[in-house]
């Protein structure tokens, strides 16, 4: 579904290189966890997939469903099935959640030549989804994310993901700032969404989420590169040993260059 080949990405404004050659292959039905210390480039990778114009891809290729992804603008990537749950979801003052999500779903249905939902049909699914994420209807009548707590914003991202049912969901630290109940709610959402036809990339700083969502692969991103990949047991190992252990392994591989 997704083939990332030797991606290098820079900050558009000052050309600082953040991603330094990433390779990743994600197939339908898989869940990949991307872990790594703060500042290692996890969000940058997620944003590059979404087409955030703050970053430029300086070399490498990304194919999504066998098509070149990098030449597509962000809205087309979304319509083709990529969903990014933002680490810091934006507030949209005055834009009602209901209206926003309905418009997004309509756009997607139109794009895939499906019939748009009536307000009533949409409302029914929207209410169920909202309830499953433990968000009050009242909150969803407000402006998108405005005045939401950190945890409410994360759950609002999950509602959007569930409503749009993307082929590839990239969840950027959707677990951070959540208490244990909210974490379980979010994990339930992801597990409910998971199927053999779609894929999920979980970007997370902590191993905690992976107790509830079992990944097929775990990758450790350090200094813009994937330093180590493995199965779910790698997450456990990171929890007990910390990231320093991988950093050392990575810098040995680099011939000592990457050592900080």
């Amino acid at each position, binding site marked *: 579904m997704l083939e990332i080949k030797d991606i290098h990405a820079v900050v*558009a*404004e000052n050309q600082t290189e953040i991603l330094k050659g990433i390779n990743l292959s994600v197939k339908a039905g898989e869940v990949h966890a991307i872990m790594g210390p703060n500042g290692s480039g996890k969000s940058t990778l997620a944003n590059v997939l*979404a*087409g*955030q*114009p*703050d970053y430029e891809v300086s070399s490498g290729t990304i194919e999504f469903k066998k098509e070149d992804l990098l030449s597509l*603008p*962000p*809205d087309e*990537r*979304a*319509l083709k099935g990529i*969903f*990014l749950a*933002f680490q810091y*979801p*934006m*507030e*949209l*003052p*005055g*834009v009602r959640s209901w*209206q*926003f*999500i309905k*418009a*997004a779903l309509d*756009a*997607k249905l139109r*794009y895939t030549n499906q019939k748009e939902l009536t307000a009533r049909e949409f409302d029914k699914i929207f209410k169920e989804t909202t309830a499953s994420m433990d968000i009050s209807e009242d909150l969803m009548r407000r*402006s998108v994310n405005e005045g939401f707590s950190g945890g409410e914003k994360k759950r609002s991202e999950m509602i*959007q993901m569930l409503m*749009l049912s993307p082929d590839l969901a990239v969840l950027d630290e959707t677990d951070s700032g959540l208490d244990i109940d909210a974490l379980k709610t979010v994990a339930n959402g992801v597990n409910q969404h998971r199927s053999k036809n779609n894929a999920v990339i979980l970007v997370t700083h902590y191993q905690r989420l992976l107790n509830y969502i079992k990944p097929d692969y775990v990758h450790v991103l350090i200094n813009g590169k994937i330093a180590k990949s493995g199965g779910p047991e790698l997450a456990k190992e990171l929890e007990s040993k910390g990231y320093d252990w991988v950093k050392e392994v990575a810098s040995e591989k680099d011939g000592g260059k990457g050592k900080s």
Partner: protein
Amino acid sequence: MKQKELAVENKYSRYLTQYSEFEEWVANNSSPLDDSLRSEAINEFRRIGFPTAKRGNEAWKFTNVNPIANQDFDFDFKSQDAELNSKMISEVTPYYDQWNTITLVNGIYNRVLSRTLDAGIVIKALRDKDPNCSLGTHADVKSNGFIAINTAFINDGAEILVSNNYQCAAPINIVHISTGNSAPRVTYPRTLIILESNSSASIIESYISINSDSQFTNAVTEIAVGEGAQLNHYRYLHESPSGFHIGSTVVDQKADSSFKTVSYSKGSKVGRNDLLVRLNDAGASCDIRGLYFTEGDEHIDNHINVDHAAPNTYSNQYFKGILADTSRAVFSGKTLIRQIAQKSEALQGDKNLILSEGARVNTKPSLEIYADDIQAAHGATAGAIPDDQIMYMLARGLDMETATSFLIQGFANEIIDSITLKEFKEYLLNYFDISMPKFRFQGFGKGKVYGGPVERV
């Protein structure tokens, strides 16, 4: 005659000629209009003229009225009603059968298009002179040439009286229409609204033009809100973009009265919404909100003055502007808190969304405070649509136009939401739905704010 008067006399001689012709016509038609009010006004105009001076003219600093002063407008005081029907009107302004309606065409009260549904209100044409009419007691002809010339040329207009303790069931719709003419036309709409003690009403004034492109509307509205009375007032300005509009509204409030107003002003070639609210007695409160939208080379100036002249008074001014193309907007909000006005509260805010680099806003909320035990705050902002909000919406599959219009509408919604008159609220929401999608976010600025320079004064 003094030098300055002589200069004014020459510059505005056509107004003075028009005045003589008008006087003669009034005399021959035994019009019951008040001659002394008008003659005082023309004398005042002769003295002050239009506020065209560049120096020391703080109130008109960013709105150049020379294009108005230099143009010949036709004052068609004999004008018979143009051929209009309610369908034509309802296409351009909120207009509903279930509302009390007063329609004035080129300043003249139109009986066919007017109706009173509520028993406790009196609606009169100013030509049917009411002996107790307090016309001219609120809007001072000395305050500026536009009020003076409007008063000098009072030909007709509307007087609305809501009697003591009466709670109006239906809204009152006052529609001012300027219609096309062979020459650019000037109209002088004049409105007097009186709410007696403990009464309440919802009143909407709208200013529109039909088949007209370069008219000049010089409107004056006087409003008296009696003790304990509550007025929900709306002002809808949407005339031709190549016309001129100077609207002056003066409000006097008695004790414990409430005046809430929400205006929507679409830009004109030169447009001005001048509002003065005097909180004369303790417990009076006003809430003044406005939304303005300019495109092309339009201009709109919201000039808002609040005078706290009694203790325990409250005022809030909150305006939002949307500026596209090379248009220009001005917000100057001035709140005076006199020494006597202890325990008062005053808020002011103006926010602007700049849609293109060529658009420009001058915003100046200001407080002048002489009392020590008060609460006051003010602020102004201007900026482009944030990149990251657009990105967030694109990442959900919305296209650029939809994302842009959602954000513009979201910005406007905060003001529109404060409209309690359901039909008017829906009218504006619908209007924004239709007219905003043509705008497009102008591109990602790598973290930079996109938009025109903001002048803070």
